[in-house]
C-alpha cells in the first residue's frame, strides 16, 4: 500500500526525529514520521509503586534483549563486550534515559590535532554553542552556570536540582582533593516549565518519570509537532529506504503491526533511528546502485561503533545519606580527569557523575555485570550476603552508599561495528543487527586509572568501604559513530549537516554522526547537531536536490 508523497519522511520518533519534525513542520514542509514503537502513557511507569525495583529488572530494563517488547528487535551480542541499550517508542531512548544533559568539551572536536589519535570533527564547539543553548531552553535544563569546564555560555534556564546528601558528601571529598566538581545539569524540571511539573526526587528517572518532570521527547516536542500537522505513525517498522533511478532516496517501506507492508514516498528522507538502528537500515537498503548498503561508498556504514564503556565505584558511608532519593539524573559531576594527560599512560579521559543507589535491591539490580563484592578479586563464599549477612549488609549500605560513575571515552575502531546477522531476525523477519565490539587497551588503562581515582574520591569523602564495578556489560546507552560525519566522502558517510555524501537527499540525525565519542552523555550534542543540521537543511532547501 502506498501513501501520498510528503516532503520529508523521518524514521524514528526519538528526540532527534522530534526536533527535526518540529522545525520542518514549522517551516511549511509536510512531514511523516515512522516509529516502530508506540506512545507510552506515564501511568505505565512503576516508579511510584512498591513493584518498581522488580519491574525495572525486566519490563523497564534498557536492554531490548532483556525486555523483549513487541517493538524491540533482538540484537546479536555474542561477539560484543558491551550490550547496546535503547528503547523503541515515541520519545525513543529519552523515555528511559537519565536526562544527564552535558555538552561535549572544545577538545572533543579536535582529538586528532590535540592528541594525535582518532579524527577531528568537521565543526567545533563554538559552531554548536548557540544550538546547545537553545536546546537547554527547549528541554528545560536545570543546572548552574559558570562551570569552568566550559567556555562562557548562557546559564541553564532552570536552577539546579538538589544535590542531596550524597552530592554534598561527594563534593566535600572532591574539595579536600582539590578536584573539579559541579552541580550536575539535568533535563529535569526544577521549576514548573512549559507544562511540565517540578521533579519530586522520586529517583526512578531511568524507568520512566511518572510525574513527567523529566524531559522526554514525547512531552517536550511531539505533542506540538503533531498538533502542527506532523503525521506520526506508530507501530511502523521500516525495512528499507528506497532510491530512484538517479540514486535519490524516494521513500521508506515499512510493515505495520498487522503485517501489512506500506510505502511512504517522500522527497527527502531523514534517519533518526540511533547508532544501531540507522546503520542496520542502511545495510538492509541494498540496491543495484548501492550493493554494500545505502550511502555506503566509504564502507563506513556500521563501522567505528563507540558505546562508552562504563565503570563505577560504589562507596559505603557510616551515615544516613538517604541515597535512594533522586534525581537519577545525576547529583554532581566532575571533569577532573577528562582531558588527556599522557603521563597517565593513555589518551582521553572520562566524565564522572554521582548517582543515587536505588532501593534495597540496589541500582541496576537487573543489569549484567556486577560489582566485585570481595573487593580483592578472590572468590567469595557462595552464600556470602545471605543468612545473617543479608540484614547486616543491608543495614550497613542501604541509604548509606552512592556511586561515582565513570563514562570512558571510547576511541573509534573500524573493527567495532554493526553488521546484519546471518542467524537472528526480528518478529517481521528482518535481519537483526549483530554487534562486533571489543574494548581497547587504551580503554582498559583508562578505566583502571579512573577506578583508582574514584576510590580515592570516596575515601576523601569518608567512605568506610568501596566496591568496584570494573566494566558493566549493560552499559551501551550511547550508540555512536556508525555513520560518521566528515568532509571527505572517502572516509565519512555524511557531512557536518548530516547529509549523505552519496545520496544528496538522505540525512542522518542521530549519534551515528559522531566522529569521536567524547566522554560525555551524548544527547545534548546529538540534539544540538540535529537542530543545527535541520535548520541548515531548511535554509538551503531551495538548492536541495529531491526525488519525486
Amino acid at each position, binding site marked *: 500500500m502506498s501513501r501520498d508523497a510528503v516532503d520529508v519522511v523521518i524514521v524514528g520518533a526519538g528526540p532527534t526525529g522530534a526536533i527535526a519534525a518540529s522545525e520542518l513542520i514549522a517551516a511549511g514542509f509536510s512531514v511523516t514520521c515512522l516509529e516502530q514503537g508506540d506512545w507510552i502513557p506515564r501511568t505505565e511507569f512503576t516508579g*511510584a509503586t*512498591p*513493584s*518498581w*525495583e*522488580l519491574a525495572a*529488572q*525486566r519490563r523497564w530494563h534498557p536492554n531490548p534483549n532483556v525486555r523483549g517488547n513487541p517493538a524491540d528487535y533482538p540484537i546479536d551480542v555474542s561477539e560484543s563486550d558491551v550490550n547496546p541499550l535503547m528503547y523503541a517508542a515515541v520519545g525513543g531512548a529519552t523515555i528511559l534515559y537519565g536526562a544527564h544533559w552535558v555538552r561535549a*568539551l572544545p*577538545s572533543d572536536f579536535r582529538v*586528532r*590535532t*590535540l592528541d594525535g*589519535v*582518532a*579524527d*577531528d570533527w568537521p565543526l567545533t*564547539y*563554538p559552531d554548536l554553542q548557540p544550538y546547545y543553548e537553545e536546546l537547554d531552553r527547549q528541554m528545560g535544563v536545570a543546572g*548552574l552556570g*559558570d562551570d*569552568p569546564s*566550559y*567556555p562562557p555560555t548562557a546559564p541553564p534556564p532552570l*536552577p*539546579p536540582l*538538589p*544535590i542531596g546528601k550524597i552530592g*554534598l558528601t561527594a*563534593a*566535600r571529598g572532591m*574539595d579536600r582533593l582539590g578536584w*573539579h*566538581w*559541579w*552541580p550536575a545539569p539535568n533535563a529535569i524540571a526544577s521549576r514548573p516549565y512549559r507544562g511540565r511539573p*517540578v521533579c519530586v526526587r*522520586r529517583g526512578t528517572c531511568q524507568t520512566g518519570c511518572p510525574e513527567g518532570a523529566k524531559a522526554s521527547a514525547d512531552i517536550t516536542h511531539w505533542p506540538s509537532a503533531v498538533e502542527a500537522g506532523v503525521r506520526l505513525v506508530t507501530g511502523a517498522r521500516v525495512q528499507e529506504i528506497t532510491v530512484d533511478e538517479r540514486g535519490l532516496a524516494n521513500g521508506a517501506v515499512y510493515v505495520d503491526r498487522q503485517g501489512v507492508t506500506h510505502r511512504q514516498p517522500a522527497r527527502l528522507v531523514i534517519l533518526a533511528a540511533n547508532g544501531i538502528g540507522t546503520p542496520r537500515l542502511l545495510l538492509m537498503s541494498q540496491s543495484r546502485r548501492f550493493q554494500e548498503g545505502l550511502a555506503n561508498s566509504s564502507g563506513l556504514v556500521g563501522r567505528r561503533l563507540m558505546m562508552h564503556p562504563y565503570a563505577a565505584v560504589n562507596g559505603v558511608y557510616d551515615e544516613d545519606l538517604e541515597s*535512594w*532519593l*533522586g534525581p537519577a539524573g545525576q547529583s554532581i559531576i566532575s*571533569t*577532573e580527569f577528562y582531558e588527556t594527560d599522557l603521563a597517565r599512560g593513555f589518551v582521553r579521559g572520562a566524565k564522572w557523575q554521582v548517582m543515587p543507589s536505588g*532501593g534495597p*535491591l540496589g541500582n541496576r*539490580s537487573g543489569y549484567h555485570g556486577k560489582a566485585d563484592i570481595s573487593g580483592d578479586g578472590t572468590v567469595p*563464599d*557462595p*552464600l556470602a550476603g*545471605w*543468612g545473617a549477612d*543479608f*540484614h547486616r549488609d*543491608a*543495614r550497613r549500605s542501604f541509604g548509606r552508599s552512592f556511586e561515582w560513575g565513570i563514562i570512558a571515552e571510547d*576511541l573509534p575502531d*573500524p573493527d567495532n561495528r554493526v553488521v546484519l546477522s546471518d542467524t537472528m531476525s526480528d518478529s517481521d523477519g528482518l535481519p537483526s543487527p549483530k554487534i562486533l565490539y571489543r574494548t*581497547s587497551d*587504551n580503554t582498559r588503562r583508562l578505566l583502571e586509572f579512573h577506578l583508582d581515582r574514584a576510590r580515592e574520591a570516596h575515601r576523601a569523602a569518608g567512605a568506610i568501604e568501596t566496591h568496584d564495578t570494573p566494566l558493566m556489560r549493560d552499559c551501551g546507552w550511547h550508540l555512536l559513530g556508525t555513520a560518521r560525519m566528515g568532509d571527505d566522502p572517502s*572516509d565519512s558517510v555524511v557531512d557536518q549537516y548530516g547529509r549523505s555524501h552519496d545520496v544528496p537527499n538522505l540525512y542522518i540525525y542521530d549519534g551515528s554522526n559522531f566522529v569521536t565519542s567524547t566522554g560525555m552523555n551524548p544527547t545534548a550534542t546529538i540534539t544540538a547537531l540535529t537542530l543545527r543540521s535541520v535548520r541548515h537543511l531548511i535554509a538551503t532547501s531551495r538548492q536541495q536536490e529531491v526525488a519525486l
Partner: protein
Amino acid sequence: MTSSTSTTLSTARIAVVDAVLDVLIPGGAGMPSARAVATTTRWLPTALDLRSDLRDQFVAFVDLMGTYPPDHDAMVAALREVATSQPSLFAAATGLLAGAYYLDPVVRGALGYPGQEERALLDETGSYIDLLERVVERGPAYRDAPLDGEPSSGEGDF
C-alpha cells in the same frame, strides 16, 4: 498492593521455599524473617508476575531444593552446592526471593526505606556554594582547541 493469584505454588513447593528462606533471610538486626512476613505466600506470586521470565528457572530451583532434606544444616549445604554448581540458577532464584521480601511494607519500614517517595524540592545551593567558589578560583578546566583541524585520517591509531 495485593498479591496476584495468577502464580500459585503447591503446598509442597511452598514448604521448600520456606525452608530455603529460613536459611537465606532469617530474622535479625531488627529485621523480620522472610517467613514472618509470609514472603512465600503473600509476595512471591507478585514477584513471579513481575519477573515471569524467571518462572521456569524458579520452579526448577525449588524442585531441585526439594530433593534435599529440609533441616537447616542440610539446606545450608544444599544451597552452597547449588550456588557453586549452578550459579545462574541460584542467582535468578535468590534475587527473586530478595525482591519478594522487600515488597513487604513491614520490611521496608524496619529498614527505614519509605519507597521511592515524593519529596519537595528545596534550594540547597547555600550548603555548597562556598565549596564551588574554590572550584571557580582554580580557573578554566578545559583545554583550548584550535578552530582549524587536521584533515581526516581515515582510521585511528592508538
